[in-house]
């Protein structure tokens, strides 16, 4: 192969990649643009790229009570993140730094629950909460999300804790630090990036969750994803307002995802890929 055909091929590959990237990005770009169009322009058959931006869509979204749904989403996502991180830290600590044989078996248990399809647990949850009158309660939803995210956060933190040099912990023990102090003062600061990444991932999952929210909430506790989902239809008469609402709802995860990007794969493969 001579160099000119190679560079020609290289240029072709680069071109194909950029086209691929454009295809990937296009729907998101389209959403962003449509949110700033007047409704008539957004749902017009001829797509337009150049237009005078308006905030009509955003105002309409807020008029539909978007703020309440966003607040519910925030409550569910933040509460569940706190629950899963607070419970995962001691568990991961016991499963990595201070390992005891039999307790170690719970690791496989944690990981296997990660593979529980939501479809398999949603019916009983729905029935139980219906019986005890806990449907449509945002904190109940948050606790379920906390449980849903625990397997990931435990495994992720464990993979970070395994990297803490043993000498540091030993030194702390020689100093006579108690277990609690050892965790809070010595171990946690060392794995803070890992804790942050686990928290962000758990936030993203809870913020995005649709299936459970659809079934376990109806009005007072309804979160943003089912609210948006209920307006999805092919006729497109709400395109501008939906695009605006979707853009608002997308912002928190875009920021969280951008920050956690480097740790996402590690978290989701549960530490298998560093």
């Amino acid at each position, binding site marked *: 192969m001579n160099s000119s055909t190679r560079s020609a091929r290289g240029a072709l590959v680069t071109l194909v*990649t950029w086209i691929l990237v454009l295809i990937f990005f296009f729907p998101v770009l389209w959403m962003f643009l449509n949110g700033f169009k007047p409704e008539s322009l957004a749902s017009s058959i001829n797509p337009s790229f150049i237009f005078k931006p308006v905030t009509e869509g955003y105002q309409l979204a807020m008029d539909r009570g978007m703020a309440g749904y966003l607040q519910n989403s925030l409550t569910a996502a933040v509460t569940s993140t706190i629950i899963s991180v607070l419970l995962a830290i001691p568990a991961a600590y016991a499963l990595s730094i201070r390992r005891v044989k039999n307790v170690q078996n719970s690791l496989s248990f944690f990981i296997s629950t990660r593979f529980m399809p939501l479809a398999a647990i949603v019916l009983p949850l729905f029935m139980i909460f219906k019986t005890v009158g806990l449907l449509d309660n945002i904190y109940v939803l948050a606790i379920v999300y906390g449980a849903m995210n625990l397997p990931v956060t435990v495994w992720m933190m464990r993979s970070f804790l395994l990297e803490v040099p043993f000498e540091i912990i030993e030194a702390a023990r020689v100093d006579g630090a108690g277990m609690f102090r050892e965790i809070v003062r010595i171990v946690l600061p060392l794995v803070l990036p890992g804790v942050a990444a686990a928290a962000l991932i758990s936030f993203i999952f809870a913020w995005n969750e649709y299936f459970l929210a659809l079934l376990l909430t109806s009005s007072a506790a309804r979160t943003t994803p089912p609210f948006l989902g209920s307006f999805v239809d092919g006729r497109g008469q709400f395109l501008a307002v939906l695009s605006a609402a979707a853009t608002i709802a997308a912002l928190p995860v875009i920021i969280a995802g951008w920050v956690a990007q480097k740790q996402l794969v590690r978290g989701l493969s549960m530490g298998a890929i560093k």
Partner: protein
Amino acid sequence: MTATADRKVRSNREAGARAGGPVDSIDAAGLGRARAAGLVAPALVLVLAFLVVPAAWTVYLGVTDYRLTGIQAANPEFVGLDNFTAALADPDFRNSLWLTLLFVLGSAIVGQTVAGFALAWTLRTVPKLVRSVVETLVLLAWILPSSIVAFLWVAYLSGDGGTLNAMLQTSGTEWLLEHPMASIIVFNTWRGTAFSMLLFSAALGAVPPSQLESARLAGAGAFAQLRDVVLPHIRGHVLTNTLLISLWTFNDFSPYLLTAGGPNHASETLPVFIYNKALYGGQLGYGSAISFIMLLINLVIALFYVRLLRERR
């Protein structure tokens, strides 16, 4: 402690960590079984209460004729394996199982893996800034809530004023009605590629450039380089990736937001089938039996994965 002894301690610990073998020796400071269990217990209880108990309940519901409303809602009866035999004879269920297989094969094993690898492979050589911009853009598709991306695609594929029709000059084509399976497969490929891309990027970073270079000097073409140099290095990553994305795709509920399983069951993958049967049709017992079948399939894949993790450690 001398540096050598220091290293020895650490390597012992790492050896223990990898093998998952004898760990009692590590517990030198004496955390003790009771305290260790106490640290793990809160997390265990939450997972038990909200994931395992409901799953067990699903198993129980699956052998009853429980319904959302009517007589069987108050007094469900034990029906043994009737729901399972009914499922096996139900053409809708078999259709759904087949569609789920197509969905996993088409969008995860072929679509996401190929697109993700192609992107990772190309991005390897581009400048760092370009690479991180591209990765972030592709990541958007994956990280946005499913209800948002579903809405984007519904608008994109709509027959009446849909953007795709405007671009292809195929006005009036109702993609979601005329090609429902193809639509959800393309959708899920688009949505999930980012994970494979990021995972393969990490994997390709571990392939020694010198080996690629010497293979190229020896006259190996791109395909031969991939097969003989790259693949042996990333075999484990390929397996991890395939297992995870297959599971996620298998359990994915997003197709519901695009087609709701229709038209006429043409894109009704298992999670959508369960939803339609159990909550729309009110057959909770039957839906639970199908959930149990899904649970079993998940368990088999999960066992493979746990094994894989053990070997890696």
